[in-house]
């Protein structure tokens, strides 16, 4: 499978490329008062209004300052969402055998890329949003 790797601060994460619609540079975001804490705001993308998600918060990481450098637009059944990340790294081919599921509190998967263990953001986690 192919994964897109991205940064949240210094940490590297991966996501299945099949979930990714497009990548966008940072753009003006409209905050939504009284919305859930992980919603950074709304953007206009090709005529659609898309919520921007604070990716740190859904991955249970500490929030970081320079999060909004890039946006990964994801297609979900309920509509599109944009994941705010601090940088895009690469698109990599990985063998299925290098993916391991770690049963912590949630269904967390990790991929082993050149002996680096990278958390893999799965559809299950995104669907919970």
């Amino acid at each position, binding site marked *: 499978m192919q994964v897109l790797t991205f940064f949240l601060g210094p940490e590297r994460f991966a996501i299945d490329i099949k979930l990714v619609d497009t990548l966008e540079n940072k753009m*003006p975001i*409209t*905050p*939504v008062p009284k919305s859930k804490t992980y919603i950074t705001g709304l953007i*206009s993308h090709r005529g659609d*209004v*898309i919520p921007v998600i604070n990716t740190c918060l859904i991955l249970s990481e500490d929030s970081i300052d320079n999060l909004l450098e890039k946006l990964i637009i994801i297609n979900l059944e309920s*509509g599109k969402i944009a994941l705010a990340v601090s940088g895009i790294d690469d698109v990599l081919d990985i063998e299925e055998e290098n993916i391991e599921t770690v049963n912590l509190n949630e269904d967390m998967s990790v991929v082993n890329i050149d002996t680096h263990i990278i958390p893999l953001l799965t559809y299950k986690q995104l669907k919970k949003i």
Partner: protein
Amino acid sequence: MDQLSPDNVSEFSTVNRKNLDELVSLVEELVINKVKIEKMKNEFSNSTQAKILDQELRIISEIQESIKKVRLIKIKTISKALSDLVDQYSKDYCIHTQFLFNGQETQIENSLISYIHNLLAYFIKDIFEKEFVISDQALSQISISAQSDGKDLTTIIESNGKGFDAEKICNVLNKKDIDLLSFSEDEVRKFISLTSSSDNIDYLLKLRQDLLHLGGSLKFESELNTFRRITIVIPMSSSIMQGLLVTIGNQVYAIPLEFIETILDKKSVKIKKSHRSQMILHMEHVIRLINVSDLLQVETSEEPSCILIVNSNNSRAALLVDSLLDQTDMVIKNKPPIIKDVNEIKGTTILGDGLVTLVLDIPSILKEI
């Protein structure tokens, strides 16, 4: 064979609903661009260019008006389905029923037709189950009438039958009249239990919630063992409407113009404090003053300077906002499902600068305060 004269050619042609929706969304994009063109026009010093843009703007406005009319549909579209429903229940319950449907030529927006059908079908079922219980009744009657004044659609469904003592119910509930939209959910449940007028209360609450979002009203009138009349008022708002842009807590918000009664300068108004809330006196009415930045829980660095008197369904409030920016045409898009629990927001609109602007839900704000 008779030749077809213009008189016997139908005045209607059939259009695929999907194609129509696509056309409407294209016009919506055109309206978004209209705001951009208006800005551009002011930057041109060359009068020929400005003239061409002026012409474009006029055409867009005309298309906007035409598309509003295209989206209208006659209410008679649902009369056959409702009449069949009455026939079916008449058979099932062995009740001979006279069914009248007046005002079938009334036009309403396409998107509302299935909602009105569901609402009327619900009350028809309810009438057979709960109203027509007196066996010696000469003739059971259900009459529906619809009329529109261009702003609101008023539909009345009346039946003779069991009914209830409206005055007594008003006294028990401590209300002047019975408008389910001005009731809390508990009050609606209490009203239903007092009049035992419905079994499917959850469905009624859902229909009520939808009507609340549309900013309508749902009034009951009745006399015991005589009649029951339900008046449903639905505002005929379109997704393309005029809005007033205001700033609240360093952010721009849009308020649909149809809800704004008056705009006042804060300096010219005396604000009184009473019972921990603020009031203003306007045209001999005491109106509650709401600081919108407090309501939205946003911080503001500006001193609020404007007061908007808003009105929906005879409920009024004075909204305190930081400043006024502009009046504009806007296309309201539904809010993304992820923020559907934010009741103060009706939807979003994209303005000429490409930024998403939040549209305040005035009926919902008036209901919550």
